[in-house]
């Protein structure tokens, strides 16, 4: 089938920062994203699991955006402004998408 080049950006960020990130993305013209739960993890700031937690201070989520390649830079700049002082990981992968008109 006909596919189109795009970028898949995956931002693992503290749950508490999620709304700030998605607002920044929206402002930067990102038209779609999905938020995945993360159960636990480990990094330079230690290990964590969400099980049994009621507070919102611990734990990360994954925000996944698929965008046209030409919009990548705007997205990264917006994301970086939010994650800058925070923990978390931003990764970018080349991908192909169906229905390019949606991005």
């Amino acid at each position, binding site marked *: 089938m006909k596919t189109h080049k795009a970028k898949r950006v995956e931002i693992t960020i503290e749950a*508490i920062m999620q709304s700030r990130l998605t607002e920044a993305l929206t402002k930067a013209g990102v038209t779609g994203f999905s938020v995945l739960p993360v159960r636990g993890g480990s990094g330079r700031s230690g290990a964590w699991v969400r*099980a*049994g937690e*009621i507070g919102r*201070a611990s734990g990360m989520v994954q925000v996944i955006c698929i965008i046209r390649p030409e919009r990548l830079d705007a997205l990264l700049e917006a994301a970086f402004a939010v994650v800058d*002082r925070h923990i978390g990981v931003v990764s970018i992968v080349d991908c192909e998408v169906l229905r390019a008109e949606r991005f």
Partner: protein
Amino acid sequence: MEQILTLATNNLLSPIILSFALGVAAALARSDLSVPEAAAKALSIYLLFAIGFKGGVSVSSHGLDAKLGLSLIAGIILSAALPLIAFALLKVMTGLSRLDAAAVAAHYGSISIVTFVAATSVLESSGITSEGYMVAVAAAMEAPAILSALWLISRGGDGRRMDSDLWREILLNGSIVLLVGSFLIGWVTGEEGLTEISSFIVAPFKGVLCLFLLDMGLVAGRGLRRGGGVLRPGVLAFGVLMPLIGSAFGLAAGLMLGLSMGGVALMMVLSASASYIAVPAAMRVALPEADPSIYLTLSLGVTFPFNLTLGIPLYVAVASALTGA
């Protein structure tokens, strides 16, 4: 003294405390016992709803005490002032950075609602009544401490904006909204409303609290296992000393306000307790460079168990001695 010991022993051997201890032990032994996040949140929603509702019903029954307003103001002042004392103490007792010290200080001005709930349940078991509006005071004490901490940091030249989003997040924090909302619902519906739902919010309350404390124990134990190492002796000592200092201020406030014996005890408990929901979340946003393993481990792993086991009976005993009830 004897009374304290009896209270403390009774308290230590109550199902509530033992459930907490079970959780801590299981986590330290690395058992895979865990309460799902959704279940833990559901338990906390239940507890907040029930405690708020019962507080409101009590206000509706005993009429609006003129002291409500004063108590709220006292609570706000305590919450705002205690972080300054905590910060000074931390600078003296520990080698924490300004940032970490301010973050820790914020926790001790604010409150832990489970500690409050556990205290009300100890009071009830001993047949001691208290002002229903203390739940409202608890809600009022959640946020001011955060401002004090950010002010401490900005004084150090390190400008932090409290953006308006953060403001809204703190003040409309789920647990504050639920606590205040159910307080108002209880107030409006009164005894009649309570009758309708008491077999849900009164009868099973203590049992639910047991399961919730089991979960808190698991989380605290896990925190201690992972983060215990970061707590130097000075920091540890702070985690036990600060609640005592806080409770003294709470005692003074409670006596000045002329609260009942139960009310004084609860004011002590609120001042002694350290936040582990609202404040940690605010710190992650506003002071991301502060180390969460310090403030979380200290608040949940040290001060919470201390208050739960020894603090509460102590505060109740002192309140009872000094109010002469």
